[in-house]
């Protein structure tokens, strides 16, 4: 079997849904952030696959940019998580309800 563009796209879609399910279903904010990272990774696969299929380098450039941004996002997310753990001793999304009408 030859692995073609469609296989990569299916892989990416599966990863994207996995990440989205992780964010929606889990209540631990650490896991939710991991889900987000998986979603960003799936985007990288789509860009790289299309870039290869179309013979256009600009998709690869985007992937590298995306790595940097995803890393920065994870760093900030974890820093905020640490700050909130120091105050509340918990990172469960259901317990974070001090902002309600």
């Amino acid at each position, binding site marked *: 079997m030859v692995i073609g563009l469609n296989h990569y796209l299916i892989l990416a879609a599966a990863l994207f849904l996995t990440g989205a399910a992780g964010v929606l279903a889990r209540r631990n904010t650490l896991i939710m952030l991991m889900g987000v990272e998986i979603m960003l990774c799936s985007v990288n696969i789509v860009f790289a696959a299309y870039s290869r299929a179309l013979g256009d380098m600009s998709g690869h450039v985007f992937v590298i940019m995306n790595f940097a941004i995803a890393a920065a996002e994870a760093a900030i997310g974890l820093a905020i998580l640490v700050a909130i753990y120091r105050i509340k001793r918990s990172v469960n999304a259901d317990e974070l309800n001090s902002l309600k*009408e």
Partner: protein
Amino acid sequence: MFVNITIPNWSDFAHFVPEAIMFGAFLLALMGDVIVRGRKPVVPFLITLLGALAALYYSFASPPVGDAGVLGSLVMIDSFAGFFRIVFSFVAVVTILFSWSSEEIMGSTREHKGEYYALIALMTGGMMVMAEARDLVMLFMSMELVALTSYVMAGYMRNSLRSTEASLKYVIFGAVSSGIMLFGMSLLFGMTGQMTFVGIRDALVANPVNDLSMLVVLIMIMAGFGYKIAMVPFHFWCPDVYEGAPTPVSAFFSVGPKAAGFALMIRFFFTVFQPIVDTIDWPLMIAILSAVTMTYGNIVAVKQTNVKRLLAYSSIAHVGYLLMGFLLLTPGGLQAILFYLLVYAVMNLGAFMFVSAINNSIKSEELSDYAGLGFRAPWASVMMFIFLVSLVGLPPAAGFIGKLYLFTEVLREGWYWLAIVGVLNSVISLFYYMQIARAMYFEKVPEDAPAVKIAPLHYVTMALLAVPTLILGLYWSEFKAIADQAIAGF
């Protein structure tokens, strides 16, 4: 496999002066803060204030001429970008000035207060770039620059549970929606093989893709923009973040990134979807989004008791009004959006700053604590009244003129039901805005009410916003002309 890469020319950077000033101010303010060991916040304050003033002056004195695509195809410096440079640097100047006397920012619980000013400078620079991006890479980079900065700013009071919680919610919502948007962008790239907005449009016109995949891509990209401007159904973060973040930060968020999101949205959708607007049922989609957004914002705002949260919902409603200008992607509608953004920036910033100035003395944002403020802080309350009248959209304030232009465009395009929904919404908004005015003027001052003392700098900044709110309502034609010209450059 080889691509034709244009090496950026150094002379291109001559087009980037206001951005360079803001990014420079960011670096200098950070270094300055380290040099004084975080003990003298006046150093970063002055650096960023001077930077923002210089950027404002430069944007006024030498607006961009023609349209220069610089750095290869990444950004476009035209009169549209020039318009937003003025708006953003003005907002930055006012926010920096205001924050200096704000207890929440300058209180004793936080050292290294200089970081706050540095972040405002960074975010202002990022917002300017957002208004200039014309390539998917730059679109994503500038949006993330603004978003990452705003996560940190929302959690500025890191010992306060509310502030950090707001920041965490912001990160998670922001990251998910930017992930969805990125997926849409990657599919768009796959369908067209292009990164620039113009290239994507040409490819879409040359070989149309099928309607369903276009719709999927459109919805995914809309998720990212919708999050940025707090449009229903991507608005969930907005009330929590505005309530939890320090009030000057909420004030900045409610106008700065929102206007930048609109700028990017205008450039992206106007360039990419304008020729194919009829094939994708665009007007109906926008009309429904707009009607739902304004109705939701207004109805939920009615039952709020926290003024900050009330203003958050009202800002969602204003996004609904602004979306009306998107209906047919005509220049007239976009001009109305631009003018309304200008008006909205001034009046909404003012309303939030009043809340923050009052919070300084009475440490509360509850509507019940606003009883009799009209007599406890007369001048500030008069200015708040001006902002409220403008937010409702009554003459002679600026909000009236802004709404008039938007509604005229909607009627001209023949969407009568949307205009009726808009007018009904304005009536609902009259009710809750006037609740604040009623508390200020028609309720007795409680016996044990704490004294309200407003810092001189707060009077200055609020006057800086109240006066334009009135001027824009009486002599708007000059400013409307600037907005018109900004779109004409497209």
